[in-house]
């Protein structure tokens, strides 16, 4: 326990140090370069000294980055975010316990109504501030840059394809020397938003192949479950011929192979740019500033050079109905999060939002009254 706690403290300290140095250079760059993308965002500090938020644990590290950027912009201001899971975030937000909530999936209709009540009758807005790329990671010595398409991926994860040298995989990987080996699928045995999004992705993109449905429990019916992202990436690392879905930061740090995804317009590698491209082209389902992303459209997108398998998480805020102090602080924090807060996200495993998307978010934040 102690060891773990110390580790966390150490990690935090290290992250903090990284961040501080990063912020230092950030503040200098725009001043000399003239491009004021980061600094030009006018953050109007003030209001409540400490905001509170609660919810999705998938965005914890990103929120930490945001908070650090916020504290750098606005001296003496802070945000306490409690990563207790999306469900709790929604609950605490609706019952006015926290100023904003974090969630992996948009509110359902009845939840929207309840949340509106909390905002004194004003609509609640979803602001998609944090996007996490999910990698299809594999361990197959001698095969670099494996290419998969959604149908093949779905078939691997529901057991219809059992061997690496299956004709379907061969067809996608012309020159690769695919062994006659069983595919070992690893999945998350705990309930997780990553599983949920991955299954939604397969459902939307692999037309008709993935019939198992979505949800936070893996439904593929094959393979071995491991707890947490660390567990699955360790499992793949230790097992030749295995494959899993995991946040890209874990795949990278375990040095696993990451499959390129061919959604119909050629294989796309998972990079900030390709994931950013998918986000930039994402359709917004919500009305006006309520920026609910149309996941089906995003996941089934065939846009060239876009990597669509990303986990979308939202901040829940009131469009109106906070008291004046809270309004000011919420706006200041979210402006920072949508602006300079995005710059360091790559390091902690998220996709920094593309420019146009930031502008949209900034407009939405400005409209909070």
């Amino acid at each position, binding site marked *: *326990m102690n*060891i*773990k706690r110390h580790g966390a403290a150490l990690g935090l300290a290290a992250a903090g140090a990284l961040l501080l140095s990063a912020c230092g250079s950030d503040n200098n760059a725009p001043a000399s370069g003239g491009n004021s993308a980061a600094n030009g965002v006018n953050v109007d500090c003030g209001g409540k000294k400490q905001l509170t938020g609660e919810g999705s*644990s998938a965005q914890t590290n990103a929120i930490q980055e945001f908070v650090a950027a916020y504290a750098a912009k606005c001296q003496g201001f802070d945000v306490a975010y409690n990563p207790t*899971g*999306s*469900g*709790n975030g*929604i609950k605490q937000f609706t019952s006015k316990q926290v100023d904003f909530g974090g969630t992996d999936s948009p509110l359902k209709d009845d939840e929207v109504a309840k949340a509106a009540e909390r905002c004194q009758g004003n609509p609640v807005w979803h602001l998609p501030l944090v996007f996490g790329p999910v990698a299809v990671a594999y361990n197959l010595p001698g095969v670099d840059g494996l290419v998969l398409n959604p149908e093949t991926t779905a078939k691997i994860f529901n057991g219809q394809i059992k061997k690496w040298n299956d004709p379907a995989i061969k067809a996608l990987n012309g020159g690769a020397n695919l062994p006659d080996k069983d595919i*070992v699928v690893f*999945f998350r*045995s*705990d*309930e*997780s938003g990553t599983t949920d999004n991955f299954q939604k992705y397969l459902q939307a993109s692999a037309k008709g192949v993935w019939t198992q449905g*979505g*949800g*936070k*429990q*893996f*439904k*593929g*019916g*094959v*393979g*071995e*479950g*491991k*707890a947490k992202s660390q*567990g699955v990436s*360790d*499992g793949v690392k*230790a*097992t030749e011929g295995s494959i899993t879905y995991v946040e890209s930061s874990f795949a990278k740090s375990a040095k696993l192979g990451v499959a390129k995804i061919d959604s119909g317009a050629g294989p796309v590698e998972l990079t900030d740019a390709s994931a950013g491209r998918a986000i930039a082209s994402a359709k917004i389902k919500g009305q006006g500033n309520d920026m609910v992303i149309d996941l089906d459209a995003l996941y089934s997108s065939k846009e060239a050079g876009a990597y669509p398998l990303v986990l979308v998480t939202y901040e829940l805020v009131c469009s109106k109905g906070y008291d004046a102090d809270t309004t000011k602080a919420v706006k200041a924090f979210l402006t920072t999060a949508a602006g300079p807060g995005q710059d360091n996200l790559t390091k902690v495993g998220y996709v920094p939002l593309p420019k146009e998307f930031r502008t949209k978010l900034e407009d939405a934040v400005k409209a909070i009254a």
Partner: protein
Amino acid sequence: MSDSTLADRSASAKETPGRARAPHGAPGSSRGGAASSPDTPEGPISTANTAQGEPASTPVRRPGDRVFRGTAVGAGAFIVVLIAAIGLFLLLQAVPALRANQVGFLTSGVWNTTDPNSLQFGILHLLWVTVATSVLALALAMPVSLGIALFLTHYAPRRLARPFAYVVDLLAAVPSIIFGLWGIKVLGPTLVPVAEWLNRNLGFVPLFAQGNVSISGAGNVLTAGVVLAVMILPVITAVSREVFERTPKEHIEGALALGATKWEMVRTTVIPFGKAGYVSASMLGLGRALGETVALYLILSGTGAAPKLSFFDGGATIASKIALGAGEFNNELTAGAYIAAGLVLFALTFAVNALARAIVARKKVSA
């Protein structure tokens, strides 16, 4: 030296009632008995009390008596109320989920609680993994613990016994997450060749047949059982040691005087004397194994397939399943499904303890 034998003799004078009580359980009671018996003044007072106190009908009560009695009764009542409250809470939370359940809770192995409108959960598979890991752990730990306890009480030089006992106790202080990490990163891979050998040569025995996860992944009942065995080792050892230490010196000396060898002495005096305590220590260990969570959460590989009743099955125990789901208890029905599983674990542990008590009680009668 002569002092202690005297005390022992006086203790053995009350041997019959004392003995009946001593094995009744846990170290606490036997330790308490031992503490009071050498204290000679207490004996006469209590006999005097029963002799003359009864007719007087108003025994002397000092405030200390009342306070102590009050706290003791309070503590006793508190634990009973607490356990009843836990049981009641589990039951109340579980009932709505059980009502909404669409499959047999005790007869199905499906676990699908994503959609609260079509809950499907059954504990059959969880129960198998829970029982299999715990029983395997017990089977591995019991003989080793017996050996350690006997070594510490009757074989080890006195100077070595004490620090050695501390070291064994230290094992109980290692956090279970450490055991879990050790199990999956170190022990698991080491056990793979053993598991493969067992599977190859004894595969015709169902217990060693191919399970529902890969043997090379090591996230199976075998690895979990071995780790659990190490975890419950100190519990069983500590309690058994206390019990074996209480073997009346007269019995030991008597056996030796009759010409018994050391092993014969241990077999004829120490083990019969401590058997009930040893069994009850093992049940205590079994209770710990049944409820162990984090280590198994890390070790066991999850699977959607049904278990094949093999040591090479994966899955989850009841406790580790709850931990796996705990991050996302978003609605009461889903949470209720897990709580219902917890209720079964509660009942199972209760049954195990009751069984232990029954074994101890039977031993007491026959002894």
